[in-house]
């Protein structure tokens, strides 16, 4: 179907009705199964790691593994890897705001013991 000039599929920024949209990348079940297996493997790893006594490193590893699994799910299961830049920025904004909530509130709790008040 020939589209008139206004509706070019190319990702030109000024084409406002149809800005850089998803490239309609179909993720095959095979790719999904790779992700599936990686998630299961990492669940096993995190459980196994919990039984090792690594002192301060335990929570760090647990969070790292959980974040890695979350990133995989977002990229492949939720197709974020194939979405437009806008969707990626939205995801980024969400986690950024969560980090703002955590770090700035923690800044109060951490520094309570500093001053003599």
């Amino acid at each position, binding site marked *: 179907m020939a589209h008139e000039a*206004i509706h070019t599929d190319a990702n030109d920024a*000024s*084409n*406002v*009705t149809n*800005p850089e949209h998803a490239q309609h990348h179909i993720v095959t079940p095979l790719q999904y199964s790779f992700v599936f297996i990686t998630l299961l493997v990492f669940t096993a790893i995190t459980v196994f790691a919990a039984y090792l006594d690594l002192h301060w490193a335990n929570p760090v590893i647990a969070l790292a593994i959980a974040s890695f699994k979350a990133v995989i799910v977002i990229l492949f299961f939720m197709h974020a890897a194939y979405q437009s830049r*806008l969707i990626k920025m939205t995801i980024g*904004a*969400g986690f950024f*705001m969560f980090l*703002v*909530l955590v770090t*700035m*509130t923690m*800044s*109060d*709790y*951490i*520094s*309570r*013991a*500093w*001053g003599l*008040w």
Partner: protein
Amino acid sequence: MSAPATHTILSLPDQSTAKMPKRHYLNNEDGLLSWLLTGDHKRIAILYLISITFFFFIGGAFAGLIRLELLTPQPDLVAADTYNKFFTMHGIIMIFLFLVPSVPATLGNFLIPIMLGAKDLAFPKINLLSWYLYLIGGTLTLAALVLGGVDTGWTFTTPLSTHYLNTHVLTAATAIFIAGFSSIFTGLNFIVTIHRMRCPGMTWFRMPLFVWSHYAASLLMVLGTPVLAIALVLVALERIAGIGVFDPAKGGDPLLFQHLFWFYSHPAVYIMILPGMGVISEVISTFSRKRVFGYSAVAFSSVAIALFGFFVWEHHMFIMGVSNYSALVFSLLTMLVAVPSAIKIFNWTFTLQKGSITFETPMLYAFGFMGLFTIGGLTGVFLGSLGMDIHLTETYFIVAHFHFVMVGGMLMAFLAGVHFWWPKMTGRMYPESLSKLAAVTTFIGFNLTFLPQFILGYLGMPRRYHAYPPEFQVLNVLSTAGATVLGVGYMLPLLYLGWSLKYGAIAGNNPWQATGLEWQIQSPPITANFIETPVMDHEAYDYEWLEKKTLNEVTTVG
């Protein structure tokens, strides 16, 4: 076209022959169901306008009762807990049921799709759901009121709200929880519409500043409101389970609730003021016939306010025992967030330069906004500086500050917007002289009400007191007098706008000769807004383009 009168730019069609367009969004479907199940963003805006006015007058009634009680130092009008229920209801209704939704849900809903050249918002059904959630939230708040009231203050301070009160805290918390989702869905709708449904040629910097400020406010709605939701859920759980994260006797930290609550409630004040700023940009540009001075500066300062708005919440908690060092950080960031507002005020002022200014009612409200918002904003700097906050927090200085910004700023802007777009929404003109009287009355009443409260604040009169030392009485009597004038001032628009629906002059497409896309279509607009998707080929506020368009239109059709 009548001879160009010098004192006004209002150009109405010849009233003897002009009549309302045959088909428009108000009359193309009839019956209650066509309104209650509508997807049309314009009808939802009208539904919101009616419900918001209803709640505004209930909240205003409580304000009146509070001011009556404060006429005398003795607690002689009502009992203590009744007074506490008054100011709690005044706070909850005014903030969650009037200020947060007012401009976005009425003017924003009505205008953003048209200003972007779209047929409707991205998700019409979710827009309707947002109105129903607002209604459920409102009814639950009234239920809490009727069942016996809630006296936690709109801030739900724990451990008071969780362990030491047995009033209807749960009902009120559920009401706000649901009304919060109404705000989230409105914000979500706006962001998607602004990103994905602009007409061809409508780049980001050709959009009106009204849309920019709603975009910034919507970011705050979407990202901030859920944290209030979880704070209220935790309060509710703690009331039910008896143990929770905020109970100091069992190891919880009540300051955690303050953090979670103010994380939303400070961005909430920017949710309330940013849309008002959008209205002011439109009004000042139209009535000075000039493009807003430093368009990109005003646009970026809206987004800057939205971004910085998230980093400053702890200035509500400076004396609550937060660590001195984090208070330093948040005080500095509070100073930074004040700068974009200053940028906006000066940009609006310089828009008037070399303009061709007329003084219709929206412009009067806009000037009222400029003055009062400047005072409100600068008194905010008082409270942002740590030392000053120690003496001024939790006194009437704070009450005066946020009423200057919310009532002087936001409500003035809302009234400016309602009067400015009334012809577009209803096809009828409001009566000019009576509305100017109302604007001046509200301005005088407002100042008489809230300026004395600054002085009371520095004297140290605490907030939420219904009995005070006798030496504060004079200022309180002045404030109550002002409140009555203010009440009258707000009653007038209700009357003459209602009157104008039937008897107002026929407005025609572009009574103000404004440049926005919404002024190029008929008023009231057809349901689909545009016959064909418009193509935006000129900059925002392009008065030369408008000149050219009206010229060749007259020649071709004439």
